């Protein structure tokens, strides 16, 4: 018995040694009031707590020894405190947090694969907050991306600083990521913007300039990283509904061409989300969204459903397991091009001189399809000690596209559609030997398998794959208190078919000098590349347009150099001003674009010659100290040139301006406006215009969006008028841009 007592005493003593220390305190703002929802974390562990409604917190089971406490909350600057915790001690650490009042102080992760203040990153980056998305009733992400300086959207092709042009949705030069994981469809590498949980987005980071040294192929022109929310400490339920009407277009000759041309066409949607933490170590959020849109042209309606769920589990203080699962189903009429500039509301028809009496003359410019997508992204994080942690990320995407028969409206057989899967994983190790140095190393492997009636691979099958492996490293060195050096290197290796592979090394280096507090000068240089997508390489079909595959297609390459300056300054009693200005010079080799090739007597994706894009970008943001007024304006200038011909690159507008104004009128009533201007491109690519009437017509884009919102308790109401001044423009060749629309939105949050 005495031995049992001794054993029990030892166990009790050792349990108290590891679990008897605690830290408590109160967190206040500069006004002296407690701040709820502040995250307090012991660095190097996953042990932490959140402050309650009075700003008080308590961390139990803290380890003995020297620990660093990090205090962080949205809208406030982080604070750190180092303390020494003796065995069984109970320490009190109270902190006052300073409020952030400018977007420049947001935290980002895309620039260096880790969290850091946006102000200190040595590359150009813009951030859209969840507030930015909420204010604009963002349904599909491109609505909000149009307000980002340097970003121009052509159809749903995203251009960052003119990198993409218009590539007929067959490939993207901007990499879209979800929580740091590449989100690319397995067939066309197009950006699936509709497959994103917009209601659960914490922020969107837009990294401008090549990101291939960190993220590989597809990041040739930049990176967009969508960061989803963490779990809240209190259960939260949000239900949002919206509904609205498309305004009939201005010109009678357009309205008369379509039987519904004089009608106000409806759209509506509903989303519900719930987030909860079942225990300190486990929680989840889920969201479901459905929307229906009748469309503002003939044959452009769509129904979209998507659902997401994110779980977070901490089985031990040093281990975290998260997973994100998403599904999407979409049925749509896919309006590709108009009938003519006098008949913009009807899809056109491409014919090659067939006998009009013998051939169906219905439009073939609006093929319908049904799409299903699924994604699964689990992440495992392990903090080995306060200096070392690693992550293992897995990813799996699946896409199924089924054409819809125009006559019966039934889905066609799978053999006439596209089935694709992309799956893989990544390991990233992080080592922080001291405050002045960070090292990241990692490797990844991905496989792509696609089967489509449109693709013919090298061995004649409709099924093909394009596996890839990569290794990367990234080092940050604080040379002095004001000078930081960042370097990175990535090696990518792709297998194109059984006998052919492609390899690429992408370096990057950047220097950042803080010449005075919150004011940074940066210089960056890097390489980018993009492997041709499956669609670009293997599309071989004469059913619609004659397109032949190109097995000799080479990867695109780029080299980028940028110099910039960023800063924050007080503006007297009127608040604070932040700014960012940069000049960039990008060269590209082997751009992939479709061209009519006489020798093949068909269209084909080919490598063009070299091209250069130079330009400058500037952004100015002002906000009053109270936050009642916020304004920003951004301007981007581009000048491009094809080396062979000296011509401008097609679809690269010279001037792009975005501006925003947000004002609190009275109480919770707020008004806002966004204005964007894009100059008409000097050159429009001509092959498409050979057979689609008036496809060469483009005009300047000038769009003004207005909004009014008010909140009472858990309910927020908003009215939005997009394209308020009813300006008609061309969204992409032979496609009318969105006309004016009116939206009413109601959100309930508890």
């Amino acid at each position, binding site marked *: 018995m005495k031995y049992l007592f001794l054993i029990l005493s030892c166990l009790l003593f050792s349990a108290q040694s590891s679990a008897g220390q605690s830290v408590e305190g109160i967190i206040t703002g500069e006004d002296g009031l407690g701040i709820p929802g502040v995250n307090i974390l012991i660095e190097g562990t996953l042990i932490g707590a959140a402050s309650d409604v009075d700003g008080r917190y308590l961390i139990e089971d803290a380890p003995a020894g020297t620990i660093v406490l990090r205090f962080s909350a949205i809208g406030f600057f982080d604070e750190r405190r180092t303390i020494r915790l003796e065995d069984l001690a109970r320490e009190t650490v109270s902190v006052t947090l300073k409020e952030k009042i400018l977007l420049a102080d947001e935290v980002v992760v895309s620039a260096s694969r880790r969290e850091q203040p946006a102000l200190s990153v040595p590359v150009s980056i813009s951030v859209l907050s969840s507030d930015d998305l909420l204010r604009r009733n963002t349904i599909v992400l491109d609505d909000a991306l149009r307000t980002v300086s340097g970003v121009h959207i052509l159809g749903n092709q995203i251009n960052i600083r003119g990198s993409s042009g218009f590539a007929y949705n067959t490939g993207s030069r901007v990499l879209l990521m979800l929580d740091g994981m590449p989100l690319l469809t397995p067939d066309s590498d197009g950006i699936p913007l509709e497959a994103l949980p917009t209601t659960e987005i914490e922020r969107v980071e837009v990294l401008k300039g090549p990101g291939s040294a960190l993220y590989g192929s597809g990041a040739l022109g930049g990176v967009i990283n969508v960061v989803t929310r963490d779990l809240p400490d209190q259960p939260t339920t949000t239900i949002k509904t919206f509904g609205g009407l498309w305004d009939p277009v201005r010109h009678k*000759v357009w309205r008369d061409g379509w039987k519904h041309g004089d009608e106000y066409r409806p759209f509506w949607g509903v989303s519900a989300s719930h987030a909860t933490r079942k225990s300190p170590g486990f929680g989840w959020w889920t969201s479901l969204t459905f929307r229906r849109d009748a469309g503002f042209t003939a044959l452009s309606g769509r129904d979209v459903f998507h659902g997401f769920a994110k779980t977070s589990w901490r089985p031990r203080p040093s281990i975290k397991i998260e997973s994100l699962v998403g599904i999407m189903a979409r049925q749509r009429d896919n309006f590709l091009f108009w009938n003519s500039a006098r008949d913009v509301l009807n899809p056109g028809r491409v014919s090659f001189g067939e*006998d009009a009496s013998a051939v169906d003359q219905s439009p073939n410019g609006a093929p319908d399809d049904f799409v299903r997508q699924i994604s699964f992204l689990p992440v495992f994080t392990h903090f080995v000690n306060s200096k070392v942690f690693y992550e293992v990320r897995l990813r799996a995407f699946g896409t199924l596209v089924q054409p819809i028969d125009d006559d019966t409206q039934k889905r066609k057989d799978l053999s006439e559609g596209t089935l694709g899967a992309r799956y893989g994983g990544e390991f990233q190790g992080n080592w922080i030997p001291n405050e002045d140095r960070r090292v990241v190393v990692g490797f990844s492997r991905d496989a792509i398998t696609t089967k489509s009636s449109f693709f013919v691979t090298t061995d004649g099958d409709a099924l093909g794959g394009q596996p890839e492996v990569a290794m990367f490293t990234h080092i940050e060195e604080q040379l002095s208190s004001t000078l930081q050096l960042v370097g990175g290197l990535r090696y990518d290796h792709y297998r194109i078919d059984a006998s052919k592979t492609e390899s690429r090394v992408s370096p990057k280096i950047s220097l950042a000098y803080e010449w005075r507090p919150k004011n940074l000068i940066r210089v960056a240089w890097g390489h980018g590349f993009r492997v041709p997508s499956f669609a670009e390489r293997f599309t071989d079909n004469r059913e619609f347009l004659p397109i032949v595959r190109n097995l000799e297609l080479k990867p695109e390459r780029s080299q980028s150099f940028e110099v910039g300056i960023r800063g924050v300054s007080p503006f007297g009693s009127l608040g604070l001003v932040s700014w960012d200005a940069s000049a960039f010079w990008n060269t590209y080799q082997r751009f992939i674009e479709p061209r*009519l090739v006489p020798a093949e007597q068909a269209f084909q994706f080919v490598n063009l010659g070299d091209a250069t894009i130079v330009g400058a970008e500037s952004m100015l943001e002002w906000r009053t100290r109270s936050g009642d007024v916020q304004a920003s304006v951004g301007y981007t200038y581009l000048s491009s040139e094809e080396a062979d011909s000296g011509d401008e690159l097609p679809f690269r507008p010279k001037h792009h301006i975005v*501006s925003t104004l947000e004002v609190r009128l009275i109480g919770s009533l707020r008004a806002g406006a966004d204005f964007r201007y894009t100059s008409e491109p000097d050159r429009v690519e001509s092959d498409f215009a*050979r*057979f689609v009437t*008036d496809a060469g017509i483009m005009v*300047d884009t000038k769009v*003004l969006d207005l909004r009014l919102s008010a909140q009472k308790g858990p309910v927020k109401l908003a009215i939005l008028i997009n394209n308020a001044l009813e300006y008609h423009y061309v969204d992409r060749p032979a496609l009318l841009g969105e006309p004016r629309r009116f939206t009413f939105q109601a959100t309930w949050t508890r």
Partner: protein
Amino acid sequence: MAVLITACDHGLEPPTDRGAGAIEGSVHYVGDWPPSDELQDLRFVAMRFIPQDTTDFFRLNDMEISVGLSSNVSDDVFSIALAQAGTYFYSGIAQKFDEDLLSWRPIGLYADNGGIFVVRSGETVSISITVDFDNLPVFPPR
């Protein structure tokens, strides 16, 4: 300032309707017809530009095409009821000699007035063409 700029300009507008007229004509064939496997299709084509190579056959927006014509005849007629008003610089009878989409060639050209005629809105233009299989026109034209 932005509001003022946008309020005065409404952007894209429908272009002026150019109107349409009609083209009708006759064709006379001389010489031996090619074998039937080289006669995939036969059309009257009127172009509002001068083609430089076979890829210009894809400039469907800039040409008018009749329905298929008869083969192995000595004479035939053609018509296009709705031809966009404008000037036509290169017109004639075209033969599709292979299954491929771009396998077309001219076999007889409208030669009067330098090969040029004008279609005016609401009016009909009449032309005549001779096809000599022993003396086919050069393509692309010099």
